[in-house]
């Protein structure tokens, strides 16, 4: 690839990012004019899930670790918000020592920290295996956590926790849908920026190198286990952030967030968009949620059509929607694929 086309590509990228920022800021006004208020909450959900999907993609696409247990971190993030809220309204301390709170500036870091800690434990054990065994052992840990919360009678068990009021944040009116959207957009932007820098840092380079050839990286003096574990923990923290935002948005946390089908859904979003690409998870999340919403509105047999579309994407494209778009763009600009 010539430097000219590289420059062209990076310019195109900058334009695309600038455009995306403008569009995202303008979303509430667009949906307001078009008259689809639920479109705003759909986009909010896309933002939240794309944080989780991008986090999963960080270990999956860049690190080559196929985790089928990321719902555990997503759910824990949600439950941290839920548990702290319950103890805030009850005015009793959690586990006898931790006071409850409804402040977003406390619950979000707490959710990130707790899910990071959980990822450290699960990752430290799981990374001793690889391949299919890694898929299954991450699933196993997630299932254990799922069963734990299902049997937690004090906090609603299977029925989950209703968070009656969204957490407070800088004195803003968080009941307002617009405000909530912009707050979540803010968190999303910070996360995406951090992820962008992380992937381009030396850490990201080492991680990608390991996916390609672990032995060579080890020979170069990078301990694979340590690097992979760091990546796993960071990824878990990202999912925790997404879970905490989701609990605030839905005002609800339940074991449903921890179920293995949620892990599978996150993985589906990543693969649909394109594994190992920066924008893939966002594309995949958007496509998945929009399909789910629109198809369900059309027919009660919507899962059949969703299945057909997923099948077509996986068999028909190599590298998901991201690759499909990249090929389309290349076709337009160069006249050939």
């Amino acid at each position, binding site marked *: 690839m010539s430097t000219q086309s590289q420059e062209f590509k990076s310019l195109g990228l900058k334009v695309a990012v600038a455009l995306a920022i403008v569009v995202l800021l303008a979303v509430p006004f667009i949906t307001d004019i078009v008259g689809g208020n639920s479109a705003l909450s759909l986009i909010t959900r896309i933002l939240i899930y794309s944080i989780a999907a991008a986090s999963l993609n960080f270990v999956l696409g860049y690190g080559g670790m196929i985790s089928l247990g990321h719902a555990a971190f997503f759910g824990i993030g949600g439950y941290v918000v839920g548990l702290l809220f319950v103890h805030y309204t009850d005015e009793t301390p959690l586990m006898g020592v931790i006071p409850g709170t409804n402040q977003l500036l406390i619950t979000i870091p707490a959710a990130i920290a707790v899910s990071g800690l959980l990822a450290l434990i699960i990752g430290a054990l799981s990374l001793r295996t690889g391949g*299919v065994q890694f898929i299954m052992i991450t699933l196993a840990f997630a*299932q254990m956590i799922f069963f734990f919360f299902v049997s937690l*009678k004090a906090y609603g068990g299977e029925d989950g926790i209703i968070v009656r009021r969204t957490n407070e944040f800088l004195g803003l009116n968080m009941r307002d849908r617009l405000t909530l959207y912009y707050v979540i957009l803010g968190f999303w932007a910070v996360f995406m920026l951090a992820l962008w820098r992380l992937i381009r840092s030396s850490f990201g380079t080492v991680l990608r190198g390991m996916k390609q050839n672990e032995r060579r990286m080890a020979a170069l003096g990078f301990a694979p286990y340590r690097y992979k574990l760091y990546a796993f923990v960071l990824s878990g923290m990202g999912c925790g952030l997404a879970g905490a935002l989701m609990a605030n948005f839905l005002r609800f946390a339940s074991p449903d967030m921890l179920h293995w089908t949620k892990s599978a859904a996150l993985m589906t979003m990543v693969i649909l968009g394109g594994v190992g690409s920066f924008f893939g998870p966002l594309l995949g999340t958007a496509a998945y949620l929009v399909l789910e919403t629109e198809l369900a509105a059309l027919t009660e047999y919507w899962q059949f059509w969703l*299945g057909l579309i997923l099948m077509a994407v*996986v068999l028909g494209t190599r590298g998901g929607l991201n690759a499909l778009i990249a090929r389309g763009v290349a076709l337009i600009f160069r006249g050939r694929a």
Partner: protein
Amino acid sequence: MILILEQLLNGLQYGVMLFLMAAGLTLIFGIMGVINLAHGSLFMVGAYAGTLAAAETGSFWLGIPVALITAAVVGFAIEALVIRRLYARDHLDQVLATFALILLFNQAITWGIGRQPVFIAIPETLSAPVELLPGLFYPPYRLVIIAAGLLVAYGLYLLINRTRIGMLVRAGATNRDMVRALGVDIRLLYTIVFGLGALLAGFAGYMSGPISAVQVGMGEQILLATFVVVVVGGVGSIKGAFVAGILLGVVDTMLRAFLPGILRGMMPADQADALGIGIASMGIYLLMALVLLVRPKGLFAAGG
């Protein structure tokens, strides 16, 4: 003592059922390198096909060949239409494609047959409990499942160890590329293995019909446990699937049966029950985690 014996039989029966599912899955995994999430759908297809046939003919036994053949034919079809395109792909594409298959199968059943669970009776001759030992009453249908499972295990043992196909299967599980390089018609081998796996899953599905519910989504309930068996036993190993299936079946049953009672000796009853069933639910996952931490490739990993 009698209670322990009865629970052991129960564990054995559950283990045999898991083995029937896991045997096919582990071969597909080991030989073709395909993660097939839709294996549970074949379980469901077998159950529905057999049940409908039994309702039509009025004979439970006529349902068996129908279940076997339908599951195998559906297996051949999805191998030819979908799975074949996935051999060269990575695990992620396989997961997504077979997940899509689950959606398709569940909706197809909902569409074609309806949402209500379907009724299937136990054959008349096997419905009354028999007294195995003084005081030990046991449903004969479960004994039939155990016997059938052991028979299948023996049949597979002969197939794998005494026939030419079995030799290729063993070779394929150990070193896929080498078999291909030797000029074996690998495509035919793959189709046969997949069809065999589908047939076993359909058999397991139909046999489980009279003791559980024939309904949409029944395959996913047993799918996770089956994957656990495959991984604990070691991918590609029939022997591993057998040992791990029985092991997990017995451990799961025993934990559920006796753990709450044992814990009651140490703590208040309600806490003991909550903790006991909590640990029992996690039991097979806990066991898998432990096995993998000690032997990262499972108990009987088939080389490669």
